[in-house]
C-alpha cells in the first residue's frame, strides 16, 4: 500500500506538533507522510497543489476559515481528499457528525484511534454538503472557483456583485471577475444579510452601493442604474426590485 499523504490543519502549533508525533508513531503500522501543515482553511487550500494530500486532518474551530468550511470547499474538487475532523470539544458539530456517520477524532487523540480512522479514510464518503452547510448557519467566509485545475478562494467580503450569465455565476471583486459553480438563488439565501437583489440576475453587496442614477439609454427597459464603489460598471435595477432597493437606500441615507 502506498503511503498516505496527510495534510495537518490546526491553528494551535502544539496541536499540530502532537499530530505529527502520533503519525510518526503509527508509521510502521500505517505508512504515512505529512505533506504539509496549515494554520487555517485558507492556508490549507493554498497548500493543496503542492501537497496533493490523500487525507486532510482538520481542526474545527480556526480563525479565518474553519474546518467545516474547508471541507465544503474541498468537497467541490474533482478528486477531493478525505477529510477527518479533529476537535477538542464541539458539542454541536459532534452531534451532527454522529447523526451523519462522519468519522471524527477527539483531541487528545489516541494513536490507535488515529490509525483506525486513517485506515478507512480512503473508503470514506465525503461528508454530505447539506450537513456541513447546516453547521455553518452564518454562511461561508469564502467562495471557491476552479481555474485551470486550481482551487481559488474569493473572500465574500471582497465581492462587490454577483451576476448570473447563462450557466455560470460571476463574482466581481475590485480586481477581477471569477466564475463560480453556484446558483444565484442559493447565494442569495446564504448571504441574505450581505447582498441585495437588483435584478433577476444580479446580487449586489449592500455596502458597495454608492448611489443611483436615471437610465438615459434609448432602449432601456429599466429606469434606474446602481453605482458601485471601485468599479466603473453601472448595474440596472429592475422595475420589480426598485421599491425594495429604494427603501433600502432610504434606510442608508437616514
Amino acid at each position, binding site marked *: 500500500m502506498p503511503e498516505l499523504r496527510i495534510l495537518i490543519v490546526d*491553528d*494551535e*502549533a*502544539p*496541536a499540530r*506538533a*502532537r499530530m505529527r*508525533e502520533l503519525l510518526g508513531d503509527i508509521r510502521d503500522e500505517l505508512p504515512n507522510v505529512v505533506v504539509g501543515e496549515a494554520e*487555517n482553511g485558507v492556508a490549507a487550500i493554498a497548500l493543496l497543489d503542492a501537497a496533493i494530500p490523500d487525507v486532510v486532518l482538520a481542526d474545527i*474551530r480556526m*480563525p*479565518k476559515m474553519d474546518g467545516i468550511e474547508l471541507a465544503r470547499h474541498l468537497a467541490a474538487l474533482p478528486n477531493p481528499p478525505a477529510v477527518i475532523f479533529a476537535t*477538542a*470539544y*464541539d458539542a454541536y458539530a459532534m452531534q451532527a457528525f454522529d447523526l451523519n456517520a462522519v468519522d471524527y477524532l*477527539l*483531541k*487528545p*487523540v489516541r494513536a490507535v484511534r488515529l490509525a483506525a480512522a486513517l485506515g478507512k479514510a480512503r473508503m470514506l464518503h465525503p461528508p454530505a454538503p447539506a450537513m456541513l452547510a447546516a453547521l455553518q448557519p*452564518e454562511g461561508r*467566509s469564502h467562495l471557491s472557483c476552479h481555474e485551470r485545475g486550481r482551487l481559488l478562494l474569493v473572500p465574500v467580503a471582497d465581492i462587490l456583485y454577483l451576476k448570473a450569465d447563462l450557466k455560470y455565476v460571476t463574482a466581481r471583486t475590485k480586481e477581477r471577475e471569477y466564475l463560480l459553480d453556484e446558483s444565484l438563488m442559493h447565494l442569495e439565501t446564504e448571504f441574505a444579510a450581505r447582498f441585495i437583489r437588483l435584478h433577476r440576475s444580479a446580487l449586489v453587496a449592500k455596502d458597495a452601493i454608492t448611489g443611483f442614477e436615471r437610465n438615459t439609454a434609448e432602449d432601456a427597459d429599466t429606469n434606474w442604474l446602481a453605482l458601485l464603489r471601485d468599479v466603473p460598471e453601472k448595474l440596472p435595477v429592475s422595475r420589480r426590485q426598485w421599491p425594495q432597493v429604494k427603501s433600502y437606500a432610504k434606510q442608508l441615507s437616514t
Partner: protein
Amino acid sequence: MTIIKQNPASRRLPDFRNLGVMLRLLLGVNLLALAAALVQAPDLLTWPLLFVELGVWVQPLLLCSLLLLAGLRDLLWRLGYAAAVSVVLMLVAGQAALLADFWRFMGFVDGSWPFLLRVALLAATAAGIMLLYFDLRAGALSPALSEARLQALTARIRPHFLFNSLNAVLSLIRAEPKRAEHALEELAELFRALMRDNRELVPLADEIALCRQYLDLEKLRLGDRLKVVWQIDDLPGELLVPPLMLQPLLENAVYHGVEPSETAGEIRIGFLRKGEELFVSLENPVIAGGSHQAGNRMALANIRERLALHYDLEARLEAREEEGIYKVTMVLPCRN
C-alpha cells in the same frame, strides 16, 4: 491564605450595613404603614392623611432602628439566630416604647401603660415581619447559590479549554519534558481552585494569581497570539472577593476575542480603586464573524447572580461593545 468563614447556608440576620437591605427595610416598613393606614381609614380619601400621620411615628423609629442595627451588626452575628432575633425584637420594641414615652413627655399623647405596650407590640410585629421576609428571601436564594455554583462549575471551565490544554501538554512531553511538568502542575492548581468550596471569599491577590495561571496555560497553546496587558495601580490585594469572578470573564475574552482572530489579540485587565469601590475592567477585541455570544451571556448572567448573592445591590456588572472593543466592567464594594 486567609479565608473568612462566611457560610450563607446557616440562618443568620441580614447584613444591616448593606445598602440593599436598608432600602428593603425602608420600603417594607413603609408598605406595612400604608397597609395599617388603609385598615384604620374610614374612606379612601383619609387614607393618605392617616399614612402621613403614622409616618410621624414610623419614620423616626425606623431610622433609629436602622442606625442601631447597623451599629450592632457584628455583635448580632455572633449570637445564634434565635437569640439575635429576640434581641432585635426587644430592641425595636424598647425603642418604640421610649419614643412613645418621649411623645408623652412632649405632651402629644397620653402615656398610659396599655398605650405604651400597644406601640411596642406593633413595632416588634413590624420588625418580626421584616425579619421573616429576609429569612424567607435567604431561603429562596440559597438553593440558587448552590445551583449557581454548580452551573458555574460546568460552564466556567469550557471542556474545550481542558482538552486543548491537555493536548498541548502532551505535545510537550517528548521535546520539553520540564515545561510539560510545569504546565501539568499549573493545570492541577487551577482545577484545585475550581473544585474547592467556592462559597468562601478569597483575597483578591489569590484570585489574580489564579488568573495568571490560567493565562499561562492559554499561552502554552496560543503562543504569541495571546497578549495580556495588566493595569494595576494601588490594588487592595488583601481585599476579600467572591472567588472565580474574574477567571470566567478572562476565559470568555480568550474564547471570543483571541481564539477566532488570525492576528494577535490583546486582552487588557485593569483595576482601579475609587473611594469605596473597586472597578475591575476587562477588554478584548470583537472579531467579525466570530462565534455566537450565547455562551458569553450565560457566563455574565451567572456572575451577576453570584454578585447579587454576595453583595445585593452594592456590586454591578456591565458589558458593552464600543468601536470594536468588548468591555466588561465589574464594580465591587471595597471597604476593608
